[in-house]
């Protein structure tokens, strides 16, 4: 895998998020997007005049509208500017930040606005995802974004009792985080003593994947403004620096259907390469916070092992000892993660945005204790797409 060093450093100078909700009947798509764009511009103290290029994206087939980048100009502010539309499934938000990072690092643009959005209440999420499958075979079989595969794998490896407990513990921890985040779409106020009840009685979706385990379907938008080092330092007292990002994509669908992966997962592959090329030997020690794209509690619990290159049940012990909460060894998703809010085209960008806010120290009520110098954020989409983004407080690597 080739790796080209950046031409110049890139800093995050503005972050905007709408509130995340199950129903935004009060705004249409461009109106909702404008809320995030305005929030990001205000955060950066900039106007659209300062923006050189706009990258904009969401999932295909989710709202059943086409070329939204054209009529969304009212909200994106892209009128008369260079603009790109990107769509890469659940990873879209991460791809947007990655593209903006590359566009600025390359020298093409000094300041780029990246916008991800989704209004999942306007479409049919599972129907949309199903229609992205191969129409000659998989479309008839695929169950949208829902899969039991992570649960099957975990139960086979760790036994039903431990695996189900860990998944639900992870779920409740995420809800406790979500309750601290005023922007959460779903924050139930779950408590530890509800474990048994939820394991037993939450409505089943697929196999051992229950409704409580699954991410929400949200409306919302996220916007981020990235600038080159020179501009970033002028525009912002404390830009958050994007040290590096990696994108890994495996396009084969059918392997998802089996209960063991024939190859290293894209998550582990991405993590291994990213850490190697940045000289990080102990990621669990190096990073101060991790914002993970966790589509379900089963996946979230499982993927910790891959992202931190852990072995055996190390990831389970982190969860069981609640080391993934604020103040723990590796706080994961202080925002509540994807289980708390999932406007899909924005979701992966929200991971980067929330990680960056933790680095700035102004995340709000869900700011974790202590200084956050090094953060990492992940994106997930499609059949196995991974993006990892490394953020730094100081330009000192």
């Amino acid at each position, binding site marked *: 895998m080739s790796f080209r060093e950046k031409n110049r450093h890139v800093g995050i100078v503005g972050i905007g998020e709408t509130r995340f909700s199950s129903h935004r009947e009060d705004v249409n798509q461009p109106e909702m997007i404008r809320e995030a764009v305005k929030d990001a511009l205000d955060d950066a103290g900039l106007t659209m005049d300062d923006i050189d290029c706009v990258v904009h994206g969401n999932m295909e087939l989710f709202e059943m509208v086409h070329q939204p980048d054209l009529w969304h100009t009212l909200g994106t502010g892209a009128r008369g500017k260079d603009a790109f539309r990107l769509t890469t499934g659940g990873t879209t938000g991460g791809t947007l930040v990655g593209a903006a990072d590359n566009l600025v690092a390359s020298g093409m643009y000094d300041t780029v606005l990246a916008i991800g959005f989704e209004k999942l209440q306007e479409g049919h999420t599972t*129907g949309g995802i199903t229609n992205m499958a191969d129409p000659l075979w998989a479309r008839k079989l695929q*169950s949208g974004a829902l899969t039991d595969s992570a649960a*099957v794998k975990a139960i086979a490896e760790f036994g039903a009792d431990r695996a189900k407990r860990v998944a639900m513990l992870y779920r409740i921890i995420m809800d406790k985080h979500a309750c601290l985040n005023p922007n959460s779409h779903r924050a139930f106020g779950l408590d530890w003593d509800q474990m048994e009840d939820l394991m037993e009685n939450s409505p089943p979706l697929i196999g051992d994947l229950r409704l409580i385990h699954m991410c929400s379907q949200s409306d919302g938008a996220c916007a981020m403004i990235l600038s080159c080092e020179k501009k970033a330092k002028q525009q912002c007292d404390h830009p958050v620096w994007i040290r590096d990002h990696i994108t890994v994509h495996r396009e084969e669908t059918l392997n998802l259907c089996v*209960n063991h992966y024939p190859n290293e997962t894209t998550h582990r592959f991405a993590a291994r390469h990213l850490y190697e090329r940045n000289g990080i030997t102990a990621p669990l020690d190096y990073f101060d916070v991790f914002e993970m794209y966790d589509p379900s509690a089963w996946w979230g619990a499982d993927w910790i092992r891959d992202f931190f290159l852990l072995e055996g049940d190390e990831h389970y012990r982190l969860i069981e000892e609640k080391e993934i909460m604020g103040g723990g060894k590796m706080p994961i998703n202080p925002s509540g993660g994807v289980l708390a809010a999932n406007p899909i085209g924005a979701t992966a960008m929200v991971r980067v945005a929330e990680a960056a806010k933790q680095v700035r120290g102004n995340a709000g009520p869900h700011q974790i204790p202590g200084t956050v110098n090094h953060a990492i954020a992940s994106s997930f989409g499609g059949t196995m797409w991974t993006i990892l983004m490394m953020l730094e407080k100081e330009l000192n690597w």
Partner: protein
Amino acid sequence: MEEEMNVKVSDSLDTMADQELIVLRKTISVDQKFATGPVMGKFLTALKDKRILAIQCPECGRLQSPPREMCAICRVRNREWVEIGPRGEMRMMEYCYYSSPDPLTGESRETPYGAIGILLDGCQKEEVFWHLLRPEHLEMVEMGIVMGDRITRGSRLRPVWAEERSGSIDDIKYFEIDEQAR
């Protein structure tokens, strides 16, 4: 503006708290045509003769069914065809309680249903075949598990072929428990 008198500015409209919000519900329905291409076409055509074909990678030897033109791992063109199954072993099931829309109609599908991975005879490891389980057998099948060297055998399954076959996924109605294997 030509007729200034037609223009009046009002602030009140937007602030109506109990405003009626318009929501349009529709189903988009678009007819589609897909070219199978020679590789998928050969595989689908064989289903008419109740034969399941796989394509083999010349380098790593793995089988893919439905076939793909390439082995994406070795990045080479697949060349050899082999016949697999049609019987096999149950390996994985998505036991679906949740109904997603049928792509053909937009209507919700009947639940529960089982989307299954079958290790057809002649295949190994991850070379599973993806289809549906006969709904009456949902509660009766055993799922096979492979965890490293630990292998648990799943139920033996056989395809139930459609009377009329046109060279599509529907040529197999579903897989069912193979009574002969008991």
